[in-house]
């Protein structure tokens, strides 16, 4: 039995609106990007931000950390970055009595909001260290397991055009991200607003919209929202349709997709839809929430084949077609109004 009350719903949507507004004061013209990042935060799902340099990815993460009053760390991933640089290491210390012992020095992963900048520039070994922390929400150093603070959210960025000297994330590790958000270049009017805000010598302040306890309670509330069975069926059908060998696969999926989404993709859609419904102040999820969440939850989970690469077909186009093809659950009466 859930403990959500009407006041909780109002509180949830109110705080969410304040956070969006606060972040929006720093980040101009990207409401959907802010909403997706906020959903990731409130569903406690990691977000991979993909976009060319200079689009404000890092600024977005900073703005979030300021708006929600949580700890924030930033790690610039480079090829020489070692796992210990992420998760921490043991150092030899000498106490007052002169005795030497190994003491654990925590890495930047011990934070609430971790910005993993250009994550694809680190070696797979380092990436794996972070990704383990993302999945397990704890790290193990020298045989000792240490829990990460909650909430723990990784916001990773990667540059899609500079491939030389990078180590693309393997599919299994990409799957750990709840959302992959594409950051697009701003339109002219948005760019004008960015110029107005950032060229005056002062950076707009981001007001504190929520404290960490509020965020924790909102994260706890999110999974409690009920989802009707027919909507769960809808999500299942969408996921099933991403598999090229499935009966319900659409022609583009059959042609371009090598591997479809994992069940984690379905979980991500449902959790994100719940969070989106709560942000909107609704006590239940709708099919529209699912359709909204699906592209960001699926675009990094579809493994495209050679034909897609050769023909320049992107996963977004396939997902868009797929969402329009998979019918919403309807009454079992043919021709029902």
């Amino acid at each position, binding site marked *: *039995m859930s403990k959500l009350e009407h006041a909780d719903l109002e509180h949830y949507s109110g705080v969410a609106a304040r956070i969006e507004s606060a972040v929006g004061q720093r980040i101009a013209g990207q409401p959907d990007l802010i909403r997706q990042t906020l959903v990731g935060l409130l569903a406690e799902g990691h977000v991979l931000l993909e976009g060319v340099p200079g689009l404000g990815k890092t600024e977005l993460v900073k703005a979030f950390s300021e708006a929600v009053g949580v700890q924030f760390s930033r790690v610039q991933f480079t090829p020489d970055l070692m796992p210990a640089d992420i998760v921490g290491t043991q150092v030899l210390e000498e106490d007052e009595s002169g005795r030497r012992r190994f003491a654990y020095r925590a890495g930047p992963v011990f934070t609430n909001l971790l910005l993993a900048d250009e994550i694809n520039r680190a070696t797979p070994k380092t990436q794996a260290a972070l990704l383990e922390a993302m999945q397990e929400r704890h790290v193990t150093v020298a045989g000792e397991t240490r829990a990460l603070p909650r909430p723990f959210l990784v916001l990773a960025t990667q540059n899609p055009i500079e491939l030389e000297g990078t180590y693309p994330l393997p599919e299994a590790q990409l799957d750990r991200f709840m959302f992959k958000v594409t950051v697009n270049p701003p339109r002219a009017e948005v760019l004008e607003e960015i110029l107005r805000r950032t060229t005056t010598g002062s950076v707009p302040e981001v007001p504190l919209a929520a404290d960490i306890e509020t965020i924790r309670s909102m994260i706890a509330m999110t999974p409690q*929202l009920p989802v009707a069975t027919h909507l769960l069926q809808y999500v299942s059908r969408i996921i099933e349709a991403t598999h090229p060998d499935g009966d319900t696969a659409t022609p583009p999926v059959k042609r371009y997709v090598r591997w479809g989404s994992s069940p984690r993709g379905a979980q991500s859609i449902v959790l994100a839809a719940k969070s989106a419904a709560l942000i909107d102040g*609704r*006590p*239940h999820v709708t099919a529209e929430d699912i359709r909204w969440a699906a592209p960001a939850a699926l675009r990094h989970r579809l493994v495209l084949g050679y034909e897609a690469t050769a023909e320049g077909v992107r996963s977004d186009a396939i997902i868009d077609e797929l969402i329009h093809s998979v019918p919403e659950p309807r*009454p079992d*009466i043919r021709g029902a109004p």
Partner: protein
Amino acid sequence: MRLAWLLATAQRFAPHLGMGIVLVVATDWLTPFDRGLWGVATILGASALLLLSRASTIRITDWDAARAAERGLRARDTLTTALEFADSEDSVHQLIQRRADRLTADSTPAQAIPIHADRHRLRQLAITATLALLIGVLPPLGSSPALSSDIEAALEAEAAQIQKIAEAVADSDLETAEEIVTELERLAEELRGAQTLEEALQSLEDAETRLSQRIDPAFLSQKTAVQGLARDLALRPLADGAPLDASSQLEELADGLEGLSEHELAAIQDRLEDLAGAQAAGNPALSSQLSEAARAMGAGNLSGAARSLQQAADGQQSGLSGTRGQQALAETQRALEGARARLSDPRTSTSGQGQGQGDQEGQGGEGSGGGQGLGAGQGQGQGQGGAGGQPQQGGGSGQISGVAPGAGGASGQGGQGTVGGSQSEGYGTGVETANVFDPVDLGNVSDIIQVGIDGGAGEGQIVGKGEAPTRSGQSVVPYARVLPQYLNQAADALGELQLPPSMRGIVQTYFDLLADEAR
């Protein structure tokens, strides 16, 4: 919900239904299948029945209704979720329930489940219905074109003509008058009601067939024999001052045998034997009666001879009557054949007119004209006679169309002048024309024969000319088909020409042999 389902389903399948109807109508149009209307009615009826039956029996659950209402109220999964989470103790469930209640509080069923018009499908239905209608109004492919105003007028003209013939026949005392009239009236009605030219042509052909089946195969021989006897006795009466009518002459002879001398009896006996010989082929019964009379006379059995002569007189009378009836059937059949030819190829239909003029003393003119080719013939005669030195004008004209491919016959009775010593003047047409198809040399330009008519001694003038198959073409008239026509004409000619009975027998035998070949 059921009504909405019914209308939504009807719209969903409407284009398919329309395509089905188009297929049925197109099949009707393209193939001999002529039950298009029936097929369309069956499809529509069955579809309506199926739809109504399904709408009344379909199972509609609460979830179905909630789902449908969500669309109408734009409730976005609220109702179905509320239906699923109906636990009254759970706070979130109560929130959902309250939200659902709010959305439905002020809504009517019509708002919740609106009936939508699917414009795309309705447009498809309109297109297919228009297509079906267009195909439906077109005449069947490969059949006669729809009746144009020209064809309709032509059919009406033919029907009127046939009606006139029927009226003329009805006024006659022919034995076959009733059946001919019935047949012609029925045909006229069918022609007026025909929807297509093909239908009209079929009616004409059917009527022709029925009439031809009623014509006695031995009719031509009988006609030649009967007319030959009448002609013989008219030209060479059995007794001086005897009436022209053959039957009356025989009756009179039967009554007056007792008063004849032996020489006269011997002459009559020879004459009767000649007549019997001429009748042997065409009318064996009459021939036998005449032979019997001659033999009885030779044997001095005058009463037996009188009985045989009386029987011969009756036979001749009966033969004349029967021949006229058969002649009327044959003429009617020819008229229908002509009508059919004109309708089947109106381009070759031409009209011809024959007119003759002649002078004769003491007797009115008699005129006849013949149409030529495929057109209607028109004959007109005019006679003028005078008596006592004062010209008197006898008026009369006849006009009747004789129609048949390549031949037309018509006759008009001119005025009858008073016989007297005075000089009279008469005009009579004396021309009858016909196209002659040479069964051997097919396709020659038609010849036109001119046959003089006793009534007028003047020369005829041909003012029209018909068309017949040309040398470069092919004969369109089968030999077997034209033979009866020429047999008939030959019989008429033999009756008209002054030929001895033996010569007539030769001609008749020739045609009998041809008839055997044709059969």
